[in-house]
């Protein structure tokens, strides 16, 4: 069969989730033997598209042609058999097995259930050797660095004779020299007839290895063109953010009161010497892309993760203990509301007061009437849509769950409220409700820090914006009408 020029043709692809169109009429082609980069902000629809290609999601409508043939995978196994392999950020290797065992995992040759040494293993090892000779096949995978684990996965994909290898942020967790090595390997793959779909937030990398680049925004396909025809990174950034009109918010004049929160040289395995201060009554936004260290910073301030350096709140040094932070007047709405914020098997009534149970009890005993009243008060105040406070938190929608988590934190009566991705995965209506709650709190004199990977979000509600990239604080801006979103995106994608 004559190979088609395009290895993959995507036509009018649509994917709907309840209330959201994640992929909206996307059409573009991927040429054979190229490195095709996919860029866009968080939530642009990249991951959804990839998940459709790997069979994790089924599309709502549209068509995908693989080598000119209709392609409709129903499982990751399905798509692998048709020649698409994926390197996820969470690597798919088994630490407790040797490199060799990992390579043949799932396709071992066996006799009566016992492993047989066959040519397959030799072939696999040969492929690995050509990619990275320094890896010993008998070595345990747990002893390898992240970069070398990636190479094991790449070898596996190559040996399976995949036409397409998708790489999702492969450089997020590896060092500079390892990145260079990885790029050499990726270029080698292209020269051996493999098409690589490369996703990264680091725009410089696209100019380094990309042949083509596709930009997505808000689920839509914006443009696909050869990288050689892209002027510079600011052109890419323009395509990525478009002419989004941000809801106007005029930051209040800061009264320049005393700093309420002061961080000195915070460092841990994900944070790199971060120092900043936050003034009382301010709304501060930490903005950065996935992996920039936002959640890690929030957890460090809250005392949930260990760190070096010092944090002072109202002049008192904070400890490595959330209990202490809450007592001092700090609360956190965590990133993952279901697994970190909510007690999903318990009712709304049981969830709301957990951070301040002293307030609904006397001598260590909970007063049930007070407890009920508190829950009713917050259901009313935050407009939590439920017919009863006895409803299990698990049965609420995402937006209402987030409001329950917010209620928990508000009831703790803290002076500093931190919110990590406060509106992730919730619908537009609930989003704007949460913004107005945040503004109202601020007008009541609370200090608020938002950690977000959505630029419109921080531009919409924050007085100051702090930019994070790769665990470091890169820049501090005052929010205003003249704020330059292109410049911001330039910084958080690693530009100088």
């Amino acid at each position, binding site marked *: 069969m004559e190979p088609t020029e395009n290895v993959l043709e995507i036509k009018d692809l649509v994917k709907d989730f309840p209330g959201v169109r994640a992929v909206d009429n996307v059409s573009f082609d991927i040429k054979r033997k190229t490195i095709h980069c996919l860029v866009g902000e968080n939530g642009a629809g990249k991951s959804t598209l990839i998940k459709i290609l790997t069979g994790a999601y089924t599309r709502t409508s549209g068509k995908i042609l693989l080598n000119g043939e209709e392609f409709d995978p129903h499982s990751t196994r399905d798509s692998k058999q048709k020649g698409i392999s994926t390197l996820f950020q969470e690597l798919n290797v088994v630490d407790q097995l040797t490199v060799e065992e990992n390579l043949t995992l799932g396709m071992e040759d066996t006799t009566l259930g016992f492993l047989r040494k066959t040519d397959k293993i030799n072939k696999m090892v040969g492929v690995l050797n050509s990619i990275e000779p320094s890896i010993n096949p008998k070595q345990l995978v747990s002893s390898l660095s992240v970069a070398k684990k990636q190479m094991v996965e790449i070898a596996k994909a190559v040996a399976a004779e995949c036409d397409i290898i998708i790489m999702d942020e492969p450089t997020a967790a590896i060092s500079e020299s390892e990145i260079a090595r990885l790029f050499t390997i990726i270029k080698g793959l292209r020269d051996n007839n493999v098409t690589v779909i490369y996703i990264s937030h680091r725009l410089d990398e696209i100019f380094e290895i990309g042949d083509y680049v596709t930009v997505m925004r808000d689920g839509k396909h914006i443009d696909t063109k050869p990288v050689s025809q892209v002027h510079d990174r600011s052109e890419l950034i323009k395509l990525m953010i478009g002419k989004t009109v941000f809801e106007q918010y005029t930051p209040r004049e800061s009264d320049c009161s005393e700093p309420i929160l002061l961080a000195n040289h915070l460092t841990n395995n994900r944070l790199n010497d971060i120092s900043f201060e936050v003034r009382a009554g301010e709304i501060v936004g930490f903005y950065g892309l996935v992996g920039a260290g936002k959640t890690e910073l929030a957890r460090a301030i*809250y005392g*949930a993760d260990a760190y070096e350096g010092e944090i002072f709140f109202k002049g008192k040094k904070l400890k490595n*203990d*959330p*209990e202490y*932070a*809450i*007592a001092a007047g700090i609360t*956190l709405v*965590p990133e993952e509301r279901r*697994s*970190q*914020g*909510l*007690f*999903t*098997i*318990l*009712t709304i*009534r*049981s969830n709301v007061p*957990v*951070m301040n*149970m*002293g307030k609904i*009890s006397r001598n*260590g*005993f*909970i007063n*049930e009437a007070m407890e009920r009243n508190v*829950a*009713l008060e917050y*259901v*009313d105040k935050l407009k939590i849509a*439920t*017919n*009863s*406070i*006895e409803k299990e938190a698990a049965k609420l929608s995402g937006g209402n769950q987030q409001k329950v988590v917010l209620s*928990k934190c508000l009831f*703790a009566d803290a002076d500093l409220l931190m919110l990590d991705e406060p509106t992730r995965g919730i619908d537009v209506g609930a989003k704007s409700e949460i913004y107005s709650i945040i503004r109202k709190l601020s007008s009541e004199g609370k200090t608020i820090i938002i950690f977000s990977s959505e630029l419109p979000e921080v531009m919409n509600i924050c007085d100051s914006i702090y930019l994070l990239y790769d665990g470091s604080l890169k820049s501090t801006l005052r929010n205003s009408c003249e704020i330059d979103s292109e410049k911001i995106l330039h910084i958080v994608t690693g530009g100088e």
Partner: protein
Amino acid sequence: MEAKKDRKPILGSRLSDESFITLFMVGVLILVFSFASLFVRNFFTIQNVINLITNNWFVIIIGIGVTFLLITGHFDMSVGGVIALTGVLSVYFSQGVNVSSNPLANGLGLPYVVALILTLVCAMGIGGLNAFFVTRLRVPSIIVTLGTAMLARGAAQVITQGAQRNTSLPEGFGVLGSLGIPGTTIRLSLMIMIALILLSFFFEKRMIYARRVYLIGANPVAARLSGINVGKYVTSLYIISALLAGITGILLASEYNAGMANRAVGYEFDALVIALLGGVSIAGGFGSVLGMFVGALILSVVTSAATGLLLSPDWQFILKAVVTFIAIMVQRYALDRRKG
């Protein structure tokens, strides 16, 4: 405001599913009890009903600690071993010094009260050891507590040279175990059990401490981020559980006037089974001491009725196995409902 119309009964207020499971198991209890009363001679008598409870006081007391730990998502398989060790220690500490050429007759000669206090301290030490491994070193609790169970029983074996200590006991050693209402089978141990059940029933519904125990079981990560010191709570529960086992060990040693290394073999499994039968979830966050008590009664009715019917006591383990499987199925049902 719609929510204000809500007038759900207090009974189902914390977890409606939990009350449902407890009520369901009460129904099962009534069913098996009626069945036994119909077919077993002399089953439906007041004395027998009292016996059903008194014969199980020890499992129910240790069941309280086991239940609260299960609610946090942790096992305590060391309680049987702790009963054996504390029984032996209470004897050894109080036996006279150099009273005989038989080494098993010589102890430390401490006053009985001091001996008991020291014994309970040792029990709490085992609980602390459990907690240390579970909360600090993050070893799965089932492995840790099976290990400390060996340790405790092993120590009991060494002290008794694999047998028992029952000579040169101080005067009054047997008082605690035999104290009771004359002419009945009601003893101090039973009264302690009833007091503990009432206390836990009262506390588990309304005390902040108990509420936090449920929160930890429901979601340990969220509990920590909500400012609950998870390690502290789990540690205190392991110490309480070991303390309850220690009290049980002392009472049993007093009742039999002997400290035996092979006392209470398998009690930890009985405590686990009755907790599961009573609707306590292995996954944590769900269950109650009241449910555990109902579970204990069901197990007691089933085993005693079967013995009275036709089976020889040899069949006891098979029966317990059957009951355990039923308990697990009820569990499954409870968990499915919870997800539903």
